[in-house]
């Protein structure tokens, strides 16, 4: 099942992301992946859930729980550092997009390529949307993409639908908890 893009006019094409209706799907994908990566943009630090929490806090929880390398885009690294979390790397959204198309590359240098990318919070829906489009056509042989952003991103393999802030937080929480449970086992 597909959904509609948040920015209504950003129509992708015939192939659209499968809508993630249950957050467990994400945890399962991460667990099964050989070399997942998490890409986090500046919106993760800009948006506030209204309870003092921001998406970046969940990113950190998820990254820790699943031991996924995190790449911070734009100047988001500063926000991670403020939270005492050192991302594996920081680079521009364009750079990480570009490198993910390279089957010989991995952010840690080990075990390339990445076979799963979780993407969240890249500023500007359209920019994120376009980078995912680049991945769709130029990394499809080795990489699956999952948007865990607030909005539906049709160019990914999987994506949340358009969510309210509350539901988004609920989903991020569920993913984190799920993975944390997994780790404990």
């Amino acid at each position: 099942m597909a959904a509609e893009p948040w920015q209504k006019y950003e129509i992708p094409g015939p192939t659209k992301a499968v809508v993630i209706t249950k957050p467990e799907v994400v945890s399962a994908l991460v667990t099964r992946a050989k070399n997942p990566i998490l890409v986090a943009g500046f919106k993760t630090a800009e948006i506030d859930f209204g309870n003092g929490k921001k998406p970046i806090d969940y990113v950190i929880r998820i990254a820790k729980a699943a031991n996924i390398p995190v790449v911070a885009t734009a100047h988001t690294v500063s926000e991670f550092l403020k939270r005492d979390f050192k991302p594996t790397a920081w680079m521009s959204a364009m750079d990480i997009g570009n490198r993910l198309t390279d089957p010989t590359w991995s952010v840690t240098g080990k075990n390339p390529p990445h076979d799963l990318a979780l993407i969240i919070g890249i500023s500007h829906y359209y920019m994120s949307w376009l980078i995912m489009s680049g991945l769709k056509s130029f990394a499809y042989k080795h990489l699956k993409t999952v948007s865990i952003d607030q909005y539906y991103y049709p160019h990914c393999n999987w994506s949340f639908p358009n969510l309210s802030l509350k539901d988004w937080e609920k989903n991020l929480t569920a993913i984190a908890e799920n993975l944390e449970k997994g780790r404990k086992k």
Partner: protein
Amino acid sequence: MTKMRIKIDELGTDILKAKGFELSVGRVVEEWEETPGPNPMPDISTLREWDHKLLKKYKPFYLPFCDLCCLCTMGKCDLSKGKRGACGLDMAAQQSRIVLLSCAIGAATHTGHARHLIEELIEKFGRDHPINVGDGSVYLEAPHARLVTGIKPKTLGDLEDIVEYCEKEIVHLLSCCHTGQEGNNIDFESKVFHAGMIDHVAMEACDIAQISTYNFPKADPEAPLVEIGIGTIDTHKPVILVIGHNVPPAVEIYEYMKRNGLENDVELCGICCTAIDITRHTQKAKIVGPLSHQLRFVRSGVADVIVVDEQCIRTDILNEAMKVNAVLISTHYKNFQGLPDRTNDPTDEIVNDLVSGKAPGACILNSEKAGEVAVRVAVAIAPKRRKMGIIPEDSQIIEAAKKCTQCHSCQRVCPNNLPIPEAMKAAAKGDLKPLADLYERCIGCVRCESEGVCPNNLHPHTLMVGASRIKIREEKFKIRAGRGPIQDVEIRRVGGPIVLGEIPGIVALVGCANWPDWKANALIAEEFAKRNFIVVATGCAAMAMAMYRNEEGLTVYEAFPGAFDAGGVLNVGSCVSNPHISGAAIKIASIFAKRKLNSNYEEIADYVHNRVGAVGISWGAMSQKASSIASGFWRLGIPVIVGPHGSKYRRALLGRKDRDEDWYVIDARTGERVYVGPTPEHLFFPVETVEEAMVMIPKLCMRPSDTTKGRAIKLNHYIDLHKKFYGTLPDDIHLFVRTVADIPVTMKDEILEFLKEKGWKESKNPSPDPTLLPRLIRVKKEG
């Protein structure tokens, strides 16, 4: 006018005696002291090798805006995930083809503009009117024309030959976009570069023509300050608004005013590049603002007569003019707007029809006539028109906002995803600030007001403008009038410091108004002027930069000098003035470094790419012209940063700093291959945030030729800004430090520690004579 070619030996004396004929002879190259280089008037194939060299370093990362191609009737074809179209095309080739199409449109627009303008100026000033862009301060008047075509233009007529070459090449380039032509994406990209190079030649010819004929500043660092901002417009006078890029009708409006003593009685203002250019002609004219201000100003009803020429005109301008009872005059066949062509009708008749409201507008393809009609109509109708057209009052805004049902439809169609529903919620409760705050981030496109978007038929943009009423009235700023080219003496002065890296870079703010916010333009300009970069600007960016005051209440144009020197902030001019920026880089190679200019593109580009620390930034790049302008910089090896919307250009050109093998140059002294690090790292680079842009600018100014002192200065800015915005040291310093002497002194310990961690080693050849062209090796390496 048609002409016939005949061989000279067929030329009988009879024909020679006939009057009014024009002859053209094979250009006597000796008239220009330099013998031609290897590549006069390059065609698509000529510089391909150079392009491939750049494209090997800076590989395209494609960002398909659509999975589909629908360019021919065999489509739509889905090209995603390795599929091919019915013509065999793959996604990479299709994306690069669309980039080429965009650049061909852009180059065609400037070339067509140049052709039309030059024809009009020749008619008025004569084919032999001399070229003068610097009143003696500029010997190298046309670096692009000389470099690319080998022509040194002396008269307006010479510019036509240059434009003719551009036309020929553009037609070839456009034809490559046809179904079933080029199949290789890198070869498409090479064609994109070709389009960009041609575009700069055409723009240069265009600006040279208008500078030479009209009363424009001529390479003047002290070009006067002129007024900009909606608040500067005197609404008590009849107001004529000019929109577009082709300045003659605006000049004729002003000249008619002057002849009739109306200079102080009629307000002449403009939007987009015609505004920039008319303020180069007369300080009495005012600039309203960039493209994003077009619709809001028209809707304010202040303008009595709107005169449009070509480019960047809202295509619904006739509708909008009619809404506020303003009269529309189209002066160009590129934009008839369906209006009747009245060029050959008697002036009085046209004026009568427009004043009486019998016709909402007219198309007048003669600048002088359009000028007269505009002024006479404005004077006649101004008293009858109610100014301040359709901007609501606070109470109306609040009432309207109460009808919002928070469906988010407006937000979801807004290019900037602006949180309108939130602002509506606040407005409904009487708090108009959130609505007014959106104003800075709004590009004025009114998609949010389009038919069927709001289920409650609200007009978010109009409400926002209403809520910003006071702020808008206070839009009163100063901008330095477009100065035109850089003087030769300025080049001589800064050539050394730039090439050695001691002036850390040239930052060029260019392009349109499709930004996430306008403030960024001024912030960037200020930041880098303070840091002793040379800040140059054109077009909508040059305008937006002016529309912000620093803590002392000054705009950047008031706070910084207008000279091409460290810490200068220059408004170079309109869109067609961009070649003066790329031209400055070329002039550094030619005047300062004395490289051969004539028909010698490859060598000059190699020089610029490896030595001239310049970077373009187009925060609001929108148009096809912006893409072709950028590609003219790319072919010279000058990197361009675009704001986030720029990712919609469908691809970035990205270096891979993690691949050492990509960053070798040849040392022209020895023939040896030398690792020089990712300098510059990218060639076309969309950024997410202004913070990211700030950090990338000094980084992209690094060049292999930097001296240790220069490199240290550049690194200092890079690291400083990185720390400021990213909260930490950059992770790639080791790629830029060649020797310990490159390290900024104040950061020495910190950086040395970092380098140690990275296992950094000093370079054995930190200062090569860098080139990518084996033919420039002076001593061939043995063996």
